[in-house]
């Protein structure tokens, strides 16, 4: 019961203080998918392949989602550090991972608005017909995607918590994920040496599952969902492990608040 109470309190705090009042966050959440859906749609028109529209919509939405999550995750920790409250958060009896988990779940759920923006742009402003072959499966894939992004961002937030250059890491983490997960193109066009990295990232499979549900695809939906959930759960387990290590290490070294 206490677990959920903390999660809900952190989620509320995240909405009221850390996300919606911040213009840069809203930029990532709403404006980024607009830019990418427009740019990729212009290029899509040259492809002559109607099926590629799913890349435009889902890719742009996911880019906005990831961009807003990474921005918020790093900015939250930087802010706590600069306000000298990061040590206090770590010292409270509530586990630090639970505090961050509540915030990151909220970021991931709010990130769905990016997908909404991309759908709206493509359907209403660019006048393209959008069909979902399996709306039920798409919803399931969407839930798996939120779980994936929440757990991946929790894992990455361990880096942000340790690093004094979290803002730099934020910039550095955004594009590799766009690239390796094939947000706007299939990962098969990447050089073969990069593909194992793509396969180890849960969002790659989450996107595949969503595309499957949207277009009908090759019938590997459940395999992709399984991989998504398995990898995301692995990230979650690693996060818990790293958070415990970090907590112990920074208590000994006393360097958590160093700017």
């Amino acid at each position: 019961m206490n677990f959920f109470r903390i999660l809900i309190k952190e989620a509320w705090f995240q909405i009221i203080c850390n996300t919606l009042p911040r213009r840069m966050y809203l930029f990532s959440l709403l404006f980024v998918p607009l830019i990418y859906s427009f740019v990729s749609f212009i290029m899509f028109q040259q492809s002559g392949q109607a099926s590629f529209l799913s890349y435009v919509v889902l890719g742009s939405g996911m880019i906005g989602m990831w961009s807003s999550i990474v921005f918020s995750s790093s900015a939250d920790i930087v802010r706590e550090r600069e306000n000298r409250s990061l040590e206090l958060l770590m010292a409270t009896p509530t586990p630090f991972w639970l505090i961050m988990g509540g915030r990151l779940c909220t970021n991931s759920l709010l990130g769905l608005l990016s997908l909404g923006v991309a759908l709206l742009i493509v359907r209403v402003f660019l006048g393209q017909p959008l069909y979902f072959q399996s709306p039920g499966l798409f919803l399931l894939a969407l839930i798996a995607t939120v779980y994936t992004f929440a757990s991946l961002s929790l894992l990455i937030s361990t880096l942000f918590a340790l690093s004094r250059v979290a803002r730099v890491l934020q910039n550095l983490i955004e594009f590799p994920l766009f690239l390796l997960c094939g947000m706007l193109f299939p990962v098969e066009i990447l050089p073969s040496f990069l593909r194992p990295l793509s396969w180890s990232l849960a969002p790659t499979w989450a996107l595949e599952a969503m595309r499957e549900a949207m277009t009908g695809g090759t019938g590997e939906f459940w395999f992709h969902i399984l991989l998504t959930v398995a990898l995301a759960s692995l990230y979650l387990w690693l996060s818990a492990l790293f958070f415990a290590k970090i907590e112990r290490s920074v208590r000994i070294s006393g360097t958590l608040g160093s700017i």
Partner: protein
Amino acid sequence: MRLIWEEALLSYKALFSWLEPRAFIMLQVIQPMFEFTFFVFIALFFMGPERAQFAAVGNAFRLVSVGSIWGLISSFRQERYSGTLKFVIGTPTPKLLVFLGRSFMHVLDSLFGVLMGLIYARLFFGVDFASANWGGLVLSIFSVVFSMLSFGTIFSALGLVMRDVNLLMNSVYALFIVFCGVNFPVSYLPEFLRLIGQVLPLTHGLEAARALIQGAQISSVLAQLGLEILIGSIYLALGLSLFVWMESVARKQASLDLY
């Protein structure tokens, strides 16, 4: 001259010394490389190999914006975060000299950006420079660096009174991605949007550079190069005037330390 040189060196060192030296490499080399590669792969997927090379050259030139826009805006933003902007503005040294000094290293940074981008384009995406008109290409690079830095001047000035300079910076990046013919020819845009690219820096210089890479004579791209320099000169005049004006606005509003 001494003042300008000292400003140039100190502000540039300060911009990166608050980070670890690794951060310089991450921000100036690795992050742009991922961003560059991501856009080229989008072009490759939707438009084929020829257009991927088109996007590779476009994104190489767009890397100028990292030094010119990010660098210029950041040099004052960091003063604000550190609480030292009011001292910089309060010194008897003319602020234009301070500003010119701070711009100097970003010229080098911008040149580094575009050179690095062209090397990526050659090594990883097979852009052919065999018949390039090197003299003309160097001229086009300088014209783009000049116009982008001039454009950056405007935003650096606005940064004196605006608190959310990150938002400003990212919005400017979006303009280049969409309107300047970086990822696809400007002619792919709807007619009413093409005009925006015509008045932005980069569009004309980039068009000239692409022709020069294919071996065009300078005389055949003089009009584009002239336009790029003209647009840059207009932005420079606007930016410097705005800088003087914003300095007085910031003093009157006592808004220098707000963030």
